[in-house]
Each structure stands twice: as structure tokens, then as C-alpha cells.
């Protein structure tokens, strides 16, 4: 292992007054028992003090937090902090100290310029005594890659750095010439390579958050495939050179509302030509994937221009960037910080499907989770395109006399209750409350199709079942 240069005096910068320890107490909800939380644990990172007294960290450090605290290096002085803006996709968060004077005297770090492959920088770590460890880092790659909680990809730096094991390393700043140029978000100790969120991403995030209303990064809402294959180009009548083939369009998304269709060839976006692999020529990074072009460069509500070829005819389409393809969905992928909603009726536990619920099944969730739920989530655009139609499902049955004979069922998607279609837990609750007596006929998408309870019995037993299983709230909608 290469030795880090510890406590090295810097010529042009004063590291003191630029970083703080960030201690987050994390407790996430138990998706399988949505009325309770899992065991708590702590995460410690190194946050960057920004000019103006706010602190930048990765979103992963403070996801599902119960509490966040700041601590000055070299002293035990502490202060609580609030999350002011957070973006789980971009993996960034800004913290505001509860006492503004806490960071008084901290100069903060300004954002530096974008880096290129081959550039050198430093990854800063804090020693126990508050001294800085400055580890030499080399930028290996600059390109669009996957972030921990984003499927489409953002720009990231591939970094080679040898980081010694230290506390407070869950988030670490990447510094060059006394300026913040990135945040290290992943690190593999074996290969000594990591990834960092580039400065330009941080800049966009901070700009967005500055007005107090965070919009987030836009999405295009299309699936596409490269157009290298000359036979395929001929088939889709693509003009000579460049362009990518659209294989699916979310009609709600930026591209869909601009009029793009499946089978279109996108030749350029906002005047930037795309090559056969979907790269545009970035003035700074050279050939860069379209993801950076359509997600980081524009902002929500900015204008989008597409030059496409449809059936061999070129045409211009115009639209507006937004996040609807990501936000307006029946089954959300991400759900942090919020308690999952649920509803108990006669021991039957109903939940609304989320990606977080499926992930609770572990790495092999696609095999282990109920297959119908996996299908609806994974092929949502085919199977559940309407964002208003949430997936309500029977997640488990808490055994009680009232549900005898039903206790083996789980993972069943609810379609109707007493003949009324159910598209959310709120709707389910309303229909349940309406039924004062008689049968409650639950209709499911899969075998056994129907389960029946008695409305009066359900009401009479509600409290006893809740008590037996220690659930104080029978519903959280």
C-alpha cells in the first residue's frame, strides 16, 4: 500500500476551516414489518464546509437518518444539523448547522474547475486528532456511470487513490489546489480505485438547491440502443453517420411529450450531434455519453430540442425538460426517509409496492421476491404504465382466528374490494370504511383469486390483532 502523505503542509491553502466530521444516526424502516424500524447504526463521514457555512455530504451518508450531527476536527465541539436539500439519485446533500455560529471562522471550500483524465488531486481524510490526511489521487476516467441509487447514470470520475482505514470516511472530499472538485462516493480497498461525484454535478446540485426549492435532475424517458450495425441502420432508414435508435418512449417523459416515438433515430439533442453509440462531443471531456447531455447540462423547465429521423425523414421536435418519467410512476424505485405505508384488515397486511420493498428481499430479489411483484416493477412501462394505478398487495397475513385458512398467502396483488377497483391504499381504506357490515370480498390478481372476511368481525378484531402483534397503528396511508 502506498503511504499517504499525512499532515503535509500546503503552500497555497489552509485546510483547517474547510471540513467537519459528520455523524449520522441511521435507522431505516423495515419493509417487511412497515410499522417498525430496523436496528439503528451510525455512519461517519467527512463533510465539506461551503462558503456561507453549509456542509456538503453524499446523500448516502444521511439516508434514513434519525439525527445528523457536526463535529469540529480537533475539538469535541458539536452541533446538530438539518438536511436542507438532498438528491438520492445524484447522491448529494446539503446540511445546515442548527446553530449558524457553529461554523463561524470556517472559510469553506470553493468549487474548483472540472477535471480531466490524468489530472491529479487529493482525497482528504481526518485523523482522530483533527489533523488532515491528504492522499494523492489520480483521475483515471471521466465518463457516465451508475450511481448507487440511480439506474440511468451520471458523470463520474474514476479515481485511483490509496486510502488508509480511518473513521469518518463514509464520505470524503476530493480537493485540488485548495478547491473542492468532487466527492468520493465509492471505494474498493482491493483495487484501490473509487468513484467520485464530479464538481460540475455538485455545482448543478447547489445551484438548484440555492432557491430553497429543489427540482432535481431531468430525465428524457426513453430507452435506446446504439446504431453501429449497418443492417439495422438500413432497416430504420437512418441517415449516414451518427444517431441512436429509440426502442421505448415513456409518453409522460421529456422526449415523449416532445413527440418522440419508438423507432425514431435521435441525431442531435440541443444542437449537439450524437454518434452511433450515443456520445456527444463535450467541450471539456471529449466524447461523452448522452446521459450527461440530457440530465446534467439542462435543468428542469429548460427547453429541449431534438433532431430526429423518422422513416428516413429528418425533423425537429421541441419540448421541455422535466422529471415526470422518473417521478410519475406507479411503483417508485427509491423511497428513503419515509415510513412505508400499510393497512391492516383482519390480520391481512396490505402494502403499496415500492422498489425498496423488493430490495428488502436481498441481492437476489428478482428470484426471491414474489414473481408478480417483480414483474410489475421491472416491466412497469408495459404492465403498469398509469402512474395513478399504484400496486396494492397483500404482503403477509398475521395469523388470527378471523383469517383461518388464509395464512399461507402472501405477495398477492389486490385488484378489487367488494367490486371496486383499488389503486392505492387510500382507496382501499375508503372502501373498507364504507363497508359497515356483510362480506369484504378481496379480489386478487393471482391464485386464490378471492379471500372473504366479515366487515363487522374485522372491525371488532382490529384492536385485538394489533395488540397481539404489538402494532399500535392499524394503518399508515
Amino acid at each position: 500500500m502506498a503511504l499517504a502523505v499525512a499532515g503535509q503542509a500546503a503552500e497555497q491553502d489552509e485546510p483547517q476551516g474547510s471540513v467537519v466530521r459528520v455523524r449520522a444516526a441511521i435507522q431505516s424502516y423495515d419493509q417487511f414489518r412497515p410499522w417498525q424500524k430496523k436496528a439503528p447504526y451510525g455512519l461517519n463521514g467527512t463533510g465539506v464546509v461551503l462558503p456561507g457555512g453549509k456542509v456538503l455530504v453524499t446523500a448516502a451518508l444521511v439516508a434514513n437518518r434519525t439525527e445528523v450531527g457536526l463535529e469540529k476536527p480537533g475539538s469535541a465541539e458539536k452541533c446538530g444539523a438539518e438536511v436542507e436539500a438532498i438528491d438520492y439519485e445524484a447522491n448529494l446533500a446539503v446540511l445546515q448547522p442548527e446553530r449558524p455560529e457553529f461554523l463561524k471562522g470556517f472559510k469553506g471550500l470553493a468549487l474548483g474547475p472540472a477535471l480531466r483524465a490524468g489530472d491529479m488531486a487529493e482525497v482528504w481524510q481526518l485523523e482522530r486528532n483533527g489533523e488532515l490526511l491528504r492522499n494523492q489521487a489520480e483521475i483515471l476516467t471521466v465518463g457516465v456511470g451508475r450511481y448507487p441509487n440511480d439506474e440511468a447514470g451520471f458523470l463520474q470520475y474514476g479515481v485511483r487513490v490509496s486510502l488508509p482505514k480511518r473513521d469518518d470516511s463514509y464520505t470524503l472530499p476530493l480537493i485540488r489546489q485548495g478547491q473542492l472538485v468532487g466527492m468520493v462516493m465509492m471505494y474498493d480497498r482491493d483495487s484501490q480505485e473509487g468513484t467520485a461525484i464530479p464538481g460540475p454535478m455538485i455545482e448543478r446540485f447547489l445551484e438548484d438547491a440555492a432557491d430553497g426549492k429543489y427540482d432535481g435532475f431531468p430525465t428524457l424517458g426513453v430507452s435506446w440502443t446504439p446504431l453501429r450495425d449497418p443492417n439495422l441502420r438500413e432497416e430504420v432508414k437512418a441517415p449516414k453517420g451518427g444517431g441512436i435508435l429509440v426502442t421505448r418512449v415513456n409518453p409522460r417523459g421529456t422526449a415523449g411529450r416532445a413527440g418522440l416515438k419508438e423507432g425514431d433515430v435521435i441525431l442531435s439533442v440541443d444542437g449537439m450531434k450524437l454518434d452511433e453509440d450515443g456520445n456527444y462531443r463535450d467541450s471539456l471531456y471529449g466524447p461523452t455519453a448522452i446521459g450527461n447531455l440530457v440530465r446534467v447540462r439542462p435543468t428542469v423547465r429548460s427547453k429541449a430540442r431534438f433532431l430526429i429521423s423518422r422513416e428516413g425523414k429528418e425533423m425537429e421536435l421541441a419540448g421541455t425538460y422535466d422529471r415526470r418519467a422518473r417521478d410519475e410512476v406507479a411503483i417508485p424505485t427509491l423511497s428513503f426517509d419515509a415510513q412505508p405505508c400499510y393497512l391492516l384488515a383482519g390480520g391481512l397486511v396490505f402494502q403499496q409496492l415500492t422498489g425498496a420493498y423488493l430490495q428488502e428481499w436481498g441481492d437476489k430479489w428478482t428470484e426471491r421476491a414474489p414473481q408478480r411483484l417483480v414483474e410489475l416493477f421491472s416491466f412497469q412501462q408495459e404492465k403498469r404504465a398509469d402512474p395513478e394505478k399504484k400496486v396494492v398487495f397483500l404482503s403477509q397475513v398475521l395469523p388470527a382466528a378471523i383469517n383461518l385458512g388464509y395464512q399461507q398467502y402472501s405477495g398477492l396483488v389486490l385488484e378489487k374490494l367488494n367490486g371496486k377497483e383499488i389503486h392505492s391504499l387510500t382507496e382501499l381504506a375508503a372502501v373498507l370504511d364504507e363497508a359497515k357490515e356483510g362480506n369484504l370480498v378481496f379480489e386478487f390478481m393471482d391464485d386464490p383469486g378471492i379471500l372473504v372476511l366479515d366487515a363487522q368481525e374485522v372491525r371488532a378484531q382490529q384492536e385485538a390483532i394489533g395488540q397481539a402483534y404489538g402494532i399500535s397503528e392499524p394503518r399508515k396511508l
Partner: protein
Amino acid sequence: MKAWILLLLGLALLGCGQDGQLREAKKNTVMVEVTSQVWDYRMPWNPGTVSSGRGAGFILAGKKIITNAHVVSGARNITVQREADPRRYAAKVRHVAHDCDLAMLEVEDEAFFKGTSHLDLGGIPELESVVSVYGFPIGGDRLSVTRGVVSRIDYNAYTHSGRESHLAIQIDAAINPGNSGGPVMQSDQVVGVAFQGFRGDVAQNVGYMIPTPVMRRFLQDVEDGKYDHYVDIAVRWMPLENPVMRRYLDRPNDGRGVVVTDVFSEGSADGYLQKGDVLLSIDGYAIESDGSVRLEGKPVQLEEIVERKFAGEEVRLEIWRKGKDQTVRVPLKPADMFSMYEVLYEPPPRYVLYGGLVFQPLTANLMAVMTGGADLRLKQKYTMFGTDQMYRETPEPVILSGVLPDSSNVYLRGLAGQIVREINGKRIRTLTDVGPALAANGERTVIRFEGDARPAVLKRAEVDGSTPRIMAQYGISEVSRTEVGERRLAKGRGEKGEEK
């Protein structure tokens, strides 16, 4: 005086029973040595890899030699040998039933049977009674005998077929490779065929044998010269234990009946039973609310009544439909529409080769070599195929199982594992649709897949040029093998969606 003689006689019989069992077992247990070939679904044109193995078998009346189907699966050469005779005799498979892991062998050379008698089949042994297992397990070459007690009598998966469950008896004698197909005896009768166990790291002293009802069914089935599959009523049902559910279905709370929750299209009950029917009795046996019936005083699942029947026979069901009692006679047949889930042994893999693209029907065998590589869409197609009755639309989904690298298909390699939806505008429902669809006129062939994968586009002239080259390069002699042979497939609906 009389009683005393009887007692003596009884003792004598008992003594003779133990000695006699060993003597008879020695005479009639055979070692089965098999060289087999296993098809390679990665390269379906290849004859497969050769391996050899050893199992056991035993002689029943009529010179029938019984062993496990898995002992002789894919056999290219079989020899049998008895303890008393050092010679090996050539044997042939006369019948094989992969669904219940049984096979019948025949030996032409009469000399083989010299000095043999035959074993007789007994009944279901009692729990905790002692049984002896005969066979040739690893650890030596001579006949081995182990003893154990009957631990459990229950339905169990028959792993050889990959999808079947039948009655099986668990014993605490170890069953190891080489025991397979050997007789399990009690006094002087065969009460089972040793057939499967667990790996030592999973469970110990757990072995399974095929009980005589399953054997008798097999023997009866092949009397007409061919083996038909097990039949299946092909419905799903739900226990009716919940009083409110019973009230909803207008049934008294008398502990009887189960409700039909699904009737599989193309199955036995299709057209006879409906969702919501309450099944009250089957062939006169009252059905309890948990789905069990009392057969010979023992509770068994209602399917056991169906299990013992043959294709073409009927079951008589007393049902409750829409507030009325009715009697329905359901003619039984195998559940061909689920045959995709059966592991195939004998039939050669079917495929179509086109410009380095290999098309194969979706089978359990193909999935076994694709897992890991298979993407979620394919995995879901496989798991949901039966539940969602996808066979009605696509009786036999066709998969682009591989792309043989060639200069003509460099851009298509990433498409391996995709489910073919249409070729040249023609919907692909079975492998036999592929050839005619590819033969359509046009400069280009366009293959479209399910989901949002890009289409594969090939130039006909290029394919014509590349095919001989690819076949030579990869040692493929036949451009396709599509004949269905004796495979039983789902029928599906016709082109316009109506029933065929």
C-alpha cells in the same frame, strides 16, 4: 396343540423369511452398468458428452427388469450382471417413465435368467417397520445390503423429472449413488425402489424409495406396449377452512369441500370445472376442507385419486356450483401444456440455425444452461409461463439461445437470450414457425424480440453466404432439427385467437 404347531410354523416362516429374502434378493438383484450421452443445449447440434454410471435393478415376473429412469437416461449401451454370474449381458430399455423415475429393461439372452426366479411386489410398509435396501453403491463392487426403518410416507418431489411429485417413502437407510433402482424389501417382497436421497451436507440418513402403488401404476400403464404420462386434473384449489369464505360460497360449516380457484386451459378439467366450484367428493371419497380424502383409512391429498388413474379414464366429482349440487365426470389426460418444465433426456434438442443465430424452444434444459446468463425477462417468461397460461398465445416460446461469432453477426451477439416475438412480421408461437418465417421473401430478415431490445436485421444474401462457413467452422451438419417426435406440447390458440 393346534396353536402350538401354528406358532412353530410361524417361527419357521419368520426364520425362513430373513434367509429367504437375502437368497431371493441375491438371485434377482442385478447390477446395471450404463454408458450414456447427455445432450448439450449450449450446442444443440452436438451429440453430447459421454459418461458412464452404475445402478441396480431387479427382476419381476415375466423377466421384466425394473430400475430407475435416471439410471438409464440417455443410455447408449447397457449391460446387466447378476451376483451369481460373472458375465455381462446386453440390455435394452423397453419402457421408460421419467415422470416417476422408473424404467423397464429387457435382456434378449435367455442365459441371463438361468438361476433367477423373480421378486413379488408388496404393499405400503408400516411406519417404523424395518426394510432392507439392496444395490451396488459406491464403496465396493459386490452386492450391498443396508437396513433402515420407514420414517415417513408422503408426497415428495421426484427430482429426475424436475416437475413431478408423487407418493414417496422416506427411510433412514442411506441411499447412495449406485443404490438407485435397487429393490427395497420387507420379508420376501419388494416394497419400494431406492431412488433418491440428499447430499451428505444437507441431511443424513434420509433416503427415498418409490412405493409399490407408483410401480404398479407404471406396470399397468405399459401393458399396452407404451408408456403414457401421469394424468393431471389441472386445477388449482383452495382449502375452505374459513367460515366467512364458506358463508360467501353458501356452504354450511361442515368441514367439507375445497374451492376451485383456477382451471388451466387445455387441461383435463377445462370445460368441465369452473372457478368458484366447490369440490365435495371425488369418486365417492368425501373431500375434507383441507383437500384431503381418506384412502384406505389414511388421509391423502385428493390428487392421489387422480394419480392412480390413466389417460382416458374419468373421475367423478360431486360439486357445488351456483347454489346447486352437480355431478361432473372429468376425462383425464396429461398436462401437456406444462411439458416445458420437464427435464428432457432422450429426444435430441431442437433448433434452427440462421446466419450464426441459434433458435431453440424454451425448455427446462435450455434454462439450466442459461441461468446466470438469462436476463430477467427470460427468467420471468419461464416462471410465469404456466401460472399465466402463456401457452395459449405461445405454446412454445422461441429463444435466440446463442449467436455463433462470425464476421457477419458482430453486432448481434448481445442479443443472445432474447425471446423471439416475430420474424419478418410473422408472429412466432413455436419453433416450427421459425423456418417458414425466415423463408419469407425480402432483401432483409428482421427479427423482433419481446420487450424493448433492438431488432436483429440480417441481409439475406449475407446469411446465404455465411451459413456454410459457419456450419463448417462450428462442425454443424444439420441447419435445423425441428421435428417434435413424441414430445407432448401445449396446443395454444390459433392465429386469430380462437381455440384450435
